[in-house]
């Protein structure tokens, strides 16, 4: 009985071999329960060991395996082959990032941006250990819970046409991360953080395309977070302009 097969068209890039990326088509056995990552692993294990790509948990929580599948940024571990309409299935490195090799993209810019928003609790004075934990009500946690679920998979940056056009843009995940800390009742670093995001290449470059929230595998809604940040930053500016003597 003939085995079912599937064709994948994978973008390769070998800087030591050529200046430009090229596509390679692989035909592999197909099972109904395969995800794209399974296919890539099959290729690497049985067909072409040189194929290079990132992956880890294979269950949609580590954020390592992002790739452009049929033009849309997705986690390769979370896309079933049976749900893909077209053959061959085109797999490319995450859009809007420089390609280092095959499906591996340069994530340094993303890492820089995460750090820029000071992603840690900032307090004027730390509570001494003996005084116990910082306690929060359910409502207080709900204020930032959604944005705390980000797995740093960078699909949102691939979806964002603003970032695609100008990589100085802070971008969805970093902005959502800033929002996550600004909304955390334990945090007292509001001013420093807002200064970091309310710059020319911060949230003001966002034009609310909204695709970032569409592709987010964890429903973080960075688009919503950015609009909230715009309102917060604008309000803060108005207050400081209209009530310059009011102490913060």
């Amino acid at each position: 009985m003939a085995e079912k097969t599937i064709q994948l068209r994978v973008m390769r890039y070998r800087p030591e071999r050529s200046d430009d990326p090229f596509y390679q088509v692989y035909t592999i056995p197909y099972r109904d329960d395969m995800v794209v990552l399974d296919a890539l692993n099959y290729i690497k294990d049985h067909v072409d060991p040189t194929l290079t790509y990132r992956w880890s948990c294979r269950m949609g929580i580590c954020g390592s395996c992002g790739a452009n599948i049929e033009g849309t940024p997705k986690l390769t571990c979370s896309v079933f082959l049976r749900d893909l309409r077209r053959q061959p299935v085109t797999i490319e490195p995450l859009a809007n990032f420089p390609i280092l090799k095959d499906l591996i993209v340069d994530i340094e810019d993303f890492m820089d941006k995460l750090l820029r928003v000071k992603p840690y609790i900032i307090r004027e004075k730390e509570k001494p250990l003996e005084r116990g934990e910082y306690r929060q009500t359910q409502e207080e946690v709900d204020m930032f819970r959604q944005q705390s679920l980000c797995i740093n998979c960078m699909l949102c940056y691939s979806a964002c046409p603003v970032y695609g056009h100008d990589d100085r843009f802070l971008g969805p995940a970093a902005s959502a991360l800033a929002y996550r800390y600004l909304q955390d009742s334990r945090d007292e670093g509001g001013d420093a953080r807002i200064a970091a995001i309310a710059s020319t290449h911060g949230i003001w470059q966002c034009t609310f395309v909204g695709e970032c929230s569409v592709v987010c595998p964890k429903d973080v809604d960075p688009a919503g977070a950015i609009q909230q940040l715009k309102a917060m930053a604008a309000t803060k500016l108005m207050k400081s302009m209209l009530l310059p003597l009011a102490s913060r």
Partner: protein
Amino acid sequence: MGAPADEVDRITPVFWGLFSLGGFVVAILLPIFIVMNSLAYAFAFVSADTITYRGMLAWIASPITKLFLVVVVGGSLFHAMHRIKYILYDFGAARHKNVIEPLVYGIAVVGTVAALFLAFSFP
């Protein structure tokens, strides 16, 4: 690679606020205004009296109407010019922001002031 810290943008937030207010004006007030001002007569929803010279003078005599016109024109311009700025930036014009920002927001300001003068110039 550490990029130098960006300067805090104090201009855009102001105009984003006006863009937001204008967005509500455009969404809620502009459609019915377009219907009444440009279409209703053409589709015989209103009589000729509404749109003739004397009809318009009578209409614009009310201070409420004058205010309405200023809000609709001003809101439309502050909303639209902010968006148009980003359309231009998307075409790569962001390096000319020192020219574009005064231009687009200047148009909004001048247009709003013009609406104010024109509307309130009628008795």
